[in-house]
């Protein structure tokens, strides 16, 4: 029937996932709080496939993205969807393979890092779409090896993807079959969770629901830890239950310099500084030295960018619901 020519970086393996889950996931509640350093050291390895949530400069797990760059596990594959977090990984030079969806900055312009890397042929890129990526995660999250869809048909996006054409046995329709994508590591920043990782997210959860279920290992960072009783009071609000979670990293202002909805606004000058810096290789290097490798922890980073008083201002600039 035809299939895309793009590389399939992660083969669907529902049985392998089952075995992994049975042997490795924390089925019952255990305290998983740890530092950024420990979480990345234990759960992100060279050669891993990494994916993040949410998008743009919104609820991106920046403190963890910075820690990944700090520790520098190389030869990474990524789901090229996200925002500054993903862009930072690309800029850091750790990435070799991208399931690309959108790497750029919307109204703020193109990604300098992605542009340079691609032009130099230093990265292998397979193309997908927002919906395709969501449904690839969803297939993995459902425990099935693929999911049919009606997107991408007829395009070069399909041709450069690793999707496959198939005909529906019930309706005869031509469909775009999307292979399940189970990242080695999912990284998600949430508003609150308990120490076991039962997490609530305010506002849209983007790809977080699917990604959390699709990931082999899952690192959460959270603005705050709440008692388990607060979670159990409204079990409808639990987007990510603890049994999916491997690490809970408390990271107040973890999305800085991006926004965390209902918590703090985007730090526009710091975002501009990043966008400006990453236009050139030298600028990127200097930025990484100053803001990522310079501070040894998220706390030191927060001091560097202005400390408590400055961060409080960002909170005030964001006025709740």
């Amino acid at each position: 029937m035809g299939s895309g020519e793009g590389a399939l970086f992660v083969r669907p393996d529902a049985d392998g996932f089952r075995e992994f889950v049975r042997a490795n996931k924390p089925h019952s509640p255990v305290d998983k709080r740890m530092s950024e350093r420990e979480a990345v050291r234990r759960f992100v390895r060279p050669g891993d496939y990494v994916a993040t949530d949410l998008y743009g400069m919104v609820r991106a797990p920046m403190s963890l993205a910075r820690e990944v760059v700090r520790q520098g596990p190389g030869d990474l594959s990524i789901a090229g969807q996200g925002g500054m977090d993903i862009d930072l990984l690309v800029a850091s030079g750790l990435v070799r393979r991208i399931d690309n969806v959108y790497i750029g900055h919307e109204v703020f312009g193109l990604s300098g890092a992605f542009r340079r890397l691609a032009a130099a042929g230093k990265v292998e890129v397979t193309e997908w779409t927002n919906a395709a990526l969501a449904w690839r995660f969803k297939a993995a999250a459902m425990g099935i090896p693929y999911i049919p869809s009606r997107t991408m048909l007829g395009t070069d996006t399909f041709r450069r993807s690793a999707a496959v054409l198939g005909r529906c046995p019930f309706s005869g329709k031509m469909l775009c079959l999307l292979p399940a994508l189970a990242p080695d590591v999912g990284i998600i920043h949430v508003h609150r969770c308990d120490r076991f990782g039962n997490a609530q997210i305010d506002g849209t959860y983007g790809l977080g629901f699917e990604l959390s279920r699709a990931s082999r290992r899952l690192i959460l960072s959270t603005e705050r830890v709440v008692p388990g009783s607060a979670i159990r009071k409204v079990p409808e609000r639990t987007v990510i239950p603890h049994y999916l979670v491997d690490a809970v990293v408390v990271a107040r202002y973890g999305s800085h310099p991006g926004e965390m909805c209902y918590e703090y606004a985007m730090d526009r000058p710091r975002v501009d500084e990043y966008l400006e810096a990453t236009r050139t290789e030298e600028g990127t290097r200097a930025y990484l030295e100053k803001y990522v490798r310079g501070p040894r922890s998220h706390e030191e980073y927060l001091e560097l960018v202005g400390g408590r008083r400055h961060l409080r201002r960002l909170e005030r600039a964001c006025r709740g619901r």
Partner: protein
Amino acid sequence: MGKKAVGSGQGAGCGVRGAGRKATGLRALHPAPRTLPAREYSGTELLICLVARIMENRKMAFIGTGVPMLAAALAKKHHAPGLMAVFEFGGTDPALDCLPLNVGAQQTFQRAISAVSLAEVMEAAQRGFLEYGFVGAAQIDPFGNLNTTVIGEHSRPAVRLPGSGGGCDIGALCWRTVALVPDHNPRKFVERLDFMTTAGYLDGPGARERAGLPPGSGPYRVVSNLAVMDYDGATRRMRLHSLNPGVTVEQVRQNTGFELVVPENAGRNEPPTRDELRILRREVDPRRLYI
């Protein structure tokens, strides 16, 4: 860094005033003087009005940041109060009393009727709920196919663009796709795309259906700084629909890199009305984040 730099928070969750200090993509294209007389208008304002006029009442529209969002807000306050703005990352019909800079930002779901996920809204589109979709492009061809992926070769591109994002999905799943090209020129309107990110009519009549795309869906309009285009029903090739104020057919032809179908009776787009401009400037974007 002073408080102003991070936003004065004039409305709930509007802490992005800093954005006004530096021209974002839209502003860079069409700088608008802070105090335009009521009869004058910027190119961006015209574009917003043209897009807004396309949106009918009681429809759902897939909205990205920038022009489509402003147009949706304008249409809602002007002639389509029942228009539903749906944002790609899950926000549906938010209050929009201040404007988001990201399709996942707080303003896209603040006081919305629901805040769910990317999958949820894409599935609504796949089920046929989304009437309008809006897409930008680096290149567009005579059949309304779009490129937002690469200029040059895919493996070593001269310019690596962001990629599909939701563009390819919108082109596949929404009923009517509207392309926005604020800079109409022959490098944008090309005979052949370097890369077809998003399906228009592919290579002509019946091609979408043969590929398996949902029947009845497809490109609807192209809105540029020079004109509005639609598509010939028989050939599915792009056709001049109506000229922007002060623009000639010849200008549009010269700035289009392929042969545009030009009907006898090409219309003319009215400039923004006083009403449109008033709503746009006072209610939609009073803090001039975009216009």
